């Protein structure tokens, strides 16, 4: 295996009414290049994670490339998934041995359409999508099952919200029982970019590369009734395969409070600082928030404040698919 490291990370989150996706992404890509003194001409492979359903526009992932510039022709790929999976593809591509650098980016404008309707379309199209169940209601079913099985309470969920910087209001009504506003993620637009580099090239580009020592992703049943929603077997297997023990900092992509508890159970993060960035409860740009978890975790190695970190990304309803990326200083 070739040693691959995160050498730079940049991101922007907010609610954007003026700029389009390209205009959101361009300064982020510029910033990540500036951090390591590269231009697009220095990049061997480019891989992105975006969704045409968010933009409401077919082939919006092609126009997103306007933010990078694709002439002379570049080696490029795209996943209709969170950018964390684009990072995985880039890591695999760098294993081929002929390229030494990769740009990974993700962009998503969750606020252009009705996100709850858009996300209903990721479900099974025959028996679930026709009912248009929104992701908050599905998460609430999972939360209810989790509380009943573990004996935990809504106060335990509120404690998660509080430690992620959310203003907790226990008197506020349910959005979907047992979830209140502070248990749910904000609807956020955003963009993120990561530069990966191999071996000596990584050491040239920055002082403390965040070396990827393990990366793995696993998926579970599409059909919600066919799996145990109270635990995350896929996160557990991915974490085991990626070698998740002994990390100082973990960035978990848990859009809902109970999902952070399920992930903590699955990954087993004894003593690790969890989500110092605030995580997806602070900003949850669809397609982007998972890549941001890897980037935020890597940043703790890049700035020298942690030796071993974990970035996690999730995709699909109720933690269906999970990716774990473990990084370390050397």
């Amino acid at each position, binding site marked *: 295996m070739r040693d691959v490291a995160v050498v730079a990370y940049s991101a922007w989150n907010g609610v954007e009414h003026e700029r*389009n996706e390209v*205009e959101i992404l361009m300064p982020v890509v510029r910033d990540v290049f500036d951090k390591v003194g590269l231009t697009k001409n220095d990049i061997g492979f480019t891989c992105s994670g975006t969704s045409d359903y968010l933009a*409401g526009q077919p082939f919006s992932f092609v126009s997103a490339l*306007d933010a990078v*510039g694709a002439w002379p022709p570049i080696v490029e790929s795209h996943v209709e998934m969170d950018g964390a999976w684009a990072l995985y593809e880039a890591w695999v591509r760098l294993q081929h041995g002929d390229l030494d650098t990769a740009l990974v980016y993700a962009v998503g404008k969750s606020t252009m359409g009705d996100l709850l309707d858009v996300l209903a*379309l990721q479900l099974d199209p025959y028996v679930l*999508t026709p009912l248009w169940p929104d992701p908050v209601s599905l998460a609430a079913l999972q939360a209810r099952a989790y509380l009943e099985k573990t004996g935990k309470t809504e106060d335990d969920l509120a404690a998660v919200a509080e430690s992620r910087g959310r203003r907790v209001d226990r008197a506020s009504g349910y959005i979907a029982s047992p979830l209140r506003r502070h248990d749910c993620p904000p609807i956020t637009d955003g963009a993120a970019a990561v530069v990966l580099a191999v071996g000596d090239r990584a050491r040239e580009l920055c002082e403390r590369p965040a070396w990827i020592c393990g990366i793995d992703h696993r998926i579970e049943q599409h059909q919600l009734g066919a799996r145990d929603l109270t635990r995350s077997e896929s996160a557990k297997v991915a974490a085991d395969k990626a070698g998740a023990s002994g990390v100082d900092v973990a960035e978990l992509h848990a859009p809902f409070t109970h999902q952070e508890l399920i992930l903590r159970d699955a990954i087993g993060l004894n003593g690790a600082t969890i989500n110092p960035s605030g995580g997806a409860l602070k900003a949850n740009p669809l397609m982007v928030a998972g890549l941001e978890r890897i980037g935020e975790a890597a940043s703790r190695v890049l700035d020298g404040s942690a030796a071993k970190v974990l970035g996690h990304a999730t995709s699909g309803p109720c933690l269906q698919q999970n990716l774990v990326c473990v990084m370390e200083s050397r």
Partner: protein
Amino acid sequence: MSEDVTGIVVPIHLDYTYTPGVAASRFLRHIAEGNYVGQRCPKCKKVYVPPRGSCPTCGVPTDEEVELKQTGTITAFCIVNIPFAGQAVECPYVSATIQLDGADIGFYHLIQEIPYDQIHIGMRVEAVWKPREEWGTTTESIAHFKPTDA
């Protein structure tokens, strides 16, 4: 015995609030004033119209605005004879790629005021605007293009 279910109909409808972006919004506001304004790439100097805020070749922001003449050249065209759902113009009509003088990329518009069998690539054309009160933030403020008299 019950009949097999061989298909279901699941109507899907999504609503979006479309944001053209900063560059395209500026372009559309200029159109509402009767001006065609593109943007120049600071690196390769190409002029894009309508601008999208970045040069897709260089990957850099295109901040400089360039007012363009309303004359140009047909670089490709098609005589549309086949009606389709949602068609806004009656058949037959001519859709053409027009490269405005001073621009480096073409855009689509209609060609009228000439028998269609006389239209050719390289033909010089000019914009014909709708009456002023019908101008808005849309390229439909221009009714069509017609051959220049010269």
